[in-house]
């Protein structure tokens, strides 16, 4: 349950918790857009340092927001964990891609020696076998990769060729820039999900969609769909876990086997999920209708949102930050 993003709300009484969900949604979105608008370190008249100073500025602002929420940093880092691999992968790709003035950071001559390769294969096999017992897997893996590269700079015997590994300086800057940027955006979205109840978020979205009613689009139905999705995603998740457990007790392993076997195993998961979901949808429709729900009909709103002084204040600050970025971008 804890590793899905939607049910993440952490109860609290911080300033950020108390903000109107509409303020939070719009302000955090504006900040995210602003982070994306920071000019890239490359190809701009502005210079590398300026880009990083701006990024640093945002990092400070976002860190302040995070501290204001009074939620433990571990909760924030948890939401980053699943994406860590993707981050590092993009970073490495950036390092290896020639760009800008092609200035080299590192130029290594790697020997493809049979002994060296055998040692590396042994490491990989060991890593795979022992992966369940290794703490901080990702860091151990990165460490091993660096060690392997270092090892290959020596000819350990039976060499049959060599190649050049080039790491580019601009790649390092670009990589760090993208890395930090996506990190900040995820922190911002985590602030939103950790401090806002799903129901409040739905109310805020409904409020922003309100203009669509002039196009004769029924927004309350959208809001109901979002809120039902929020309600049932954890349930579906639990159900999947249950089926997975049942299948694995029958000897089905979703991680092993050929592609064909894996596909048939996934189908063996999907079919019960589909059957359960159809039944659930039918039951839910009955339950909602029996309780007097008429799609699109007016309903009392239990959640009322209040736009207060602190909301105005936060919103003005956000606007100032956003305007600054736009002005810098234009100049």
């Amino acid at each position, binding site marked *: *349950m804890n590793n899905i993003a939607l*049910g993440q709300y952490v*109860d609290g009484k911080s300033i950020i918790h108390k903000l109107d969900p509409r303020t939070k949604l719009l302000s955090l979105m504006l900040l995210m857009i602003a982070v994306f608008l920071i000019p890239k370190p490359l190809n701009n008249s502005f210079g590398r340092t300026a880009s990083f100073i701006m990024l640093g500025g945002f990092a400070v602002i976002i860190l302040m927001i995070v501290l204001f929420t009074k939620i433990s940093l571990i909760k924030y880092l948890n939401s980053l964990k699943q994406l860590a691999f993707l981050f590092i992968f993009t970073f490495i790709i950036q390092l290896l891609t020639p760009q800008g003035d092609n200035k080299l950071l590192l130029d290594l001559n790697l020997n493809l020696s049979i002994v060296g390769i055998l040692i590396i294969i042994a490491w990989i096999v060991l890593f795979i076998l022992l992966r369940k017992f290794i703490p901080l897997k990702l860091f151990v893996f990165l460490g091993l990769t660096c060690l392997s590269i270092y090892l290959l700079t020596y000819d350990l015997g039976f060499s049959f060729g060599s190649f050049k590994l080039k790491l580019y300086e601009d790649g390092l800057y670009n990589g760090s820039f993208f890395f930090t940027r996506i990190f900040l955006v995820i922190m911002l979205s985590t602030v939103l999900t950790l401090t806002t*109840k*799903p*129901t409040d978020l739905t109310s805020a979205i409904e409020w922003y969609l309100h203009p669509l009613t002039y196009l004769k689009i029924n927004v309350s139905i959208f809001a109901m769909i979002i*809120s*039902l999705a*929020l*309600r049932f995603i*954890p*349930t579906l998740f*639990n159900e999947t876990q249950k089926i997975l457990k049942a299948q694995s007790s029958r000897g089905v392993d979703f991680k092993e086997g050929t592609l064909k076997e894996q596909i048939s195993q996934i189908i063996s998961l999907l079919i019960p999920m589909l059957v359960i979901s159809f*039944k*659930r949808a039918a*039951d*839910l429709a*009955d*339950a*909602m*209708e*029996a*309780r*007097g*729900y*008429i799609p699109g*009909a*007016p*309903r*009392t*709103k*239990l959640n*009322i949102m209040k736009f207060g002084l602190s909301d105005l204040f936060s919103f003005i600050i956000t606007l100032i930050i956003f305007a600054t970025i736009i002005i810098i971008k234009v100049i």
Partner: protein
Amino acid sequence: MKVRFNNVSFAYDEESVVLKNFNLTINDGEMVAILGHNGSGKSTIAKIMMGLLEVEKGEIYLNDKVLNMDTIEECRNHMSIIFQNPDNQFVGVTVKDDIAFGLENKQLPREEILNRIQKYLRLVSMEDFIDHAPEELSGGQKQRVAIAGALAMESELMIFDESTSMLDPKGTKEVNEMIKKIKNENNKTIIVITHNLEEASYADRIVVLNSGEVVTDGTPKEVFKKIEVLEASGLKTMESVSIIHNLKNKEYKNKKEIEEALWELTFNE
């Protein structure tokens, strides 16, 4: 609330006719158990009453008002139903939202909704769980929330459609205690749909259903005496009832012989 089925026929498709010329009257303030095995048509009857299924033939009267497309919304204001699956009827993201759901549909004022949430959560002893998500509740607790939601509608008729059949023994007990409490403290009409004889035995009256037909109808005692009818309807009788029936078939001289026979019946059958 008085409910009357008059010559009602219903089928999901041409092959499976569930009800054929079905007649049943439930009186105001009565607690009636509708007892039948799986597939005997119990849920179909409940859904017809709630206007979730449209009948082919016949009429349903609620307090002598006929149920049809024009009256259905008004009629639903007077009836609540608690279904079998605790998860599939929990609409809200939290307990509070779920109880509010029906009241928001009724467009009650916000203050009134908040009051009723407090009042009925206390009644089902769930007031400490007001902000909890359904994943944090047991099956029995979810059903109690569903009951609070139904009670909050303050309707005259409550239908429980096998609302304990997916619960563990503890949850089953919680829900059954709740039903008894509602029966004793209100003058609501209660319909308990079940395949469990013990649950049916709390009712004032039991209607036994088999293949969409009423096979017997009476007080629990009257119905339980007709053991052949119950068995023919695919229902498993309560231990105590079958012991009574077994004793009836033999002659006993004294208390000791009866006691011996009871031991034998309890362990050898």
